[in-house]
């Protein structure tokens, strides 16, 4: 199958946004306010933390925050030299720093990060582990969630099922499960 036709192509997968229940977005924002706009989205790999963080950025901007998005991952575990000091110099009460992948920072760098952004009006992070900031929400996955996502991406006539086995094989990592399905379709 051509990559452009693959229903599990990255852009199609990314078009599936975080599944929030009715009114949950408002409750999350209210909880974030109660936490002083300093909180963490917590969960394992492939549970939707990045997607949820992105989805909350627009409502936060509508509240008047200027959202600054930072990202770290296994290949980029540090901020580019001078990035934080440059950022810190311009931060104020209307700035909200969103850091995706905070677990990449060791304790010393995490403390330095917090110090650098102390003038910001808020900080919202994603992390694999709780404890860096109060937990706003813990992202979880389920075979049923994976099945719903697959159903939205692949036409029912394709006969794709999401076996429990796929979910288990990827230890609940929905992103990796969808990448496996990409390979299945690519070989067709």
């Amino acid at each position, binding site marked *: 199958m051509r*990559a*452009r036709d693959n229903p599990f*192509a*990255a*852009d199609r997968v990314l078009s599936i946004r975080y599944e929030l229940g009715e009114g949950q977005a408002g409750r999350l924002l209210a909880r974030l306010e109660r936490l002083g706009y300093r909180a963490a989205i917590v969960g394992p790999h492939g549970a939707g933390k990045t997607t949820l963080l992105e989805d909350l950025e627009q409502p936060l901007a509508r509240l008047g925050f200027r959202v600054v998005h930072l990202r770290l991952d296994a290949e980029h575990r540090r901020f580019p030299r001078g990035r934080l000091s440059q950022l810190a110099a311009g931060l104020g009460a209307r700035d909200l720093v969103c850091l995706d992948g905070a677990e990449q920072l060791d304790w010393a760098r995490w403390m330095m990060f917090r110090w650098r952004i102390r003038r910001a009006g808020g900080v919202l992070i994603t992390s694999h582990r709780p404890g860096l900031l109060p937990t706003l929400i813990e992202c979880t996955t389920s075979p049923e969630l994976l099945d719903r996502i697959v159903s939205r991406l692949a036409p029912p006539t394709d006969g794709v099922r999401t076996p429990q086995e796929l979910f288990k094989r990827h230890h609940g990592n929905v992103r990796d499960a969808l990448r496996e399905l990409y390979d299945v379709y690519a*070989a*067709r």
Partner: protein
Amino acid sequence: MNDLRIELADSRRAFKPGESVEGRVTWTVDRASSAEVRLFWYTRGKGTQDVGIVDTVAFPNPQTTDQRTFRFALPDGPFTFSGTLVSIIWAIELIVEPGSSAERREIVISPSGREVVVGHAST
């Protein structure tokens, strides 16, 4: 109700590298602060999506109902391509602001005028 259209000259969809693509865009929108047409390619596949904007034609003083012509000189590459891991797709897009109203028309750029397809993707 926004209505944006792209018409390519002679209804062509396939081009060879170095050729020109020309056409006409029309739009009817509630408000028009800026309008432009872009020639670009993007990737679709397993990895992170990549985009390259090759040329842009901005239309000065756009009206809410308007039509303009455009012409792009096409580059030598990359060719329109598909493997199993990535596809490179060329397109022309009309964007009218505010509201980012958009219309996109895919084209093919390759020496044969057909998408270059390799590996399993060709079966």
